[in-house]
């Protein structure tokens, strides 16, 4: 989430403690006038406008995003799919050495 937070909310020196924020029902996010408002949404289509880096990081950590493609990590499925194909191919390569005949 660190990478996604940097991408959506920008870089910050702050090191948020999300557990502490989550466990404190009275926690209030302070607006940052220097922070450009970011609109985030979740999988259900709910929308929120965040006005500080900390608030933005908190929502992103909770799965909110500003881009619909983040909900389905295509690269992850492609990576595991390719790895599976490679494992099968390696097995056949060891057994039949088919690359020699290619």
């Amino acid at each position, binding site marked *: 989430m*660190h*990478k996604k937070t940097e991408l959506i909310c920008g870089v910050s020196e702050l090191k948020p403690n999300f557990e502490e924020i989550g466990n404190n029902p009275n926690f209030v996010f302070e607006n940052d006038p220097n922070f450009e408002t970011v609109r985030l949404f979740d999988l259900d289509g709910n929308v929120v406008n965040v006005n500080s880096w900390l608030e933005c990081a908190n929502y992103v950590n909770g799965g909110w995003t500003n881009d619909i493609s983040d909900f389905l990590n*295509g*690269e*992850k499925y*492609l*990576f595991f799919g*390719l790895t599976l194909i490679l494992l099968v191919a390696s097995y056949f390569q060891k057994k039949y050495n088919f*690359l020699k005949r*290619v």
Partner: protein
Amino acid sequence: MAIAIISFGFLSIPDIPAIELHPDHTSFYQENLCSFSIFDLMSQDYGTYNIEIYIEPTGSVECFGKNSWYEYQLEKRIEYGWDYNEPDKIKIWISSNINLDLLIQSTFWLLLISFVPRKDSKTISNKIVISAINTLIFYIHLIGEKSYYKNLSREYDIEIFSREFNNDLYIENYFLYLYLITLFLVSYVFLHLFENRLGSLINYLPYLFLIYGTYASLNLNIYLIILSSLGVTSLLKNNIHKKLTSLYFLFSIFWLVNLEQKDLNFDVDKLRGFTNSSQSLTSTIFWIIIFYLLTNGVYFFINESRKHYDTGKFRRNLLISSSLVFLIGNLAAINKLVNYFSFYFLGLNKFGMRSLESISGNTWRGIAPSAEGMGEFFAFVVLFTVLISFDKKIQLNFFEKLLLVITILGIARTNNFAAISSCVAIVAFYFSINKLKTKRTIIVFLIYLLPFRVHCIYNFLEIIHMFT
């Protein structure tokens, strides 16, 4: 064919059916992004509207091959000396993705190489080590051209692993893992293909003019990857010219020391795949290394294969390649799907011409980025064919004569006077030498050239006059 069909969603069924391509339906297509494949769109009626398809390289994996944007451009006046009205058109962007482009296009091109007949095997040892080194070099490329790739992919991240805010290890940079694995596979598979085709690949070099090999979204070219793997191979075999290597790296160090680093994103345009898009230290180091390896790779390739060079086969493949360039160019001009897929699977730097009409009634470039360059290639093919046929007395069969006619048609369409006249002059000179074989021939030839030289001097003086 199967790769093209499956990867571009021919078999997929959209949730909602596509509708007619019309300016009034712009909002429909803009609201339903990533819903329709290029096949769904092209099967729709578009009346008399001009449709232009473009690639959107910033797409996600999920959106690959689907509509990324749709807009209607009104008729507008183009002013650049020869003012004309560009007709109205519907522009459609089809999404592509860095990782999928690397995977699909590499698979296709390696598959094409696999069709080259096997001949004279020679085992290349340490293929895994060579591929790993090559992959590492291309990792440097990804780091160095941060500005270029950051604009292309939301998933761009160069760290193999990183730390979360709570210090947990984050090892889900699938973008990078896919990139590295694919590059490793490309090098590894190519080395296997190369070692089994040492005796035949050299005669298939003419197809370099057909398969440009540039990836649709990356600033990379397949020939960089495969030839640099050969360069690494020759380096590990200590098969390098030590003096030239030292001189090259001496100049490189001088260049790097004086480099003024700038974090910019240079529009690589027609040079994409073979030029630096940044002015960072890392990217400059990458391109210095890669051009060194590329040169070594080419030298290694020629050295290992030259004894298998066959003039007849080379000539035949030159003719086939030039004919295919011309024919595919024509097909791409009349069919939008061919235009799109020729761009993608031939690895072109820019889309082929979308009409059979010449530019300003003058030249026609087909699928090539420049008409002049393609004219020179066609002229070279004709020149090579004629000279080799007569010099080596290798007859052309009916099929090759037909291909020669197609190539000549290609020169005529590109309308490159310099290429045509040079070709004619050289052929005339060749026949003159062979007929007379005296010094007088050279004088006669120079007299033939006189009108061309006068014409060139006249043009040169006109240009000077324009600027003074």
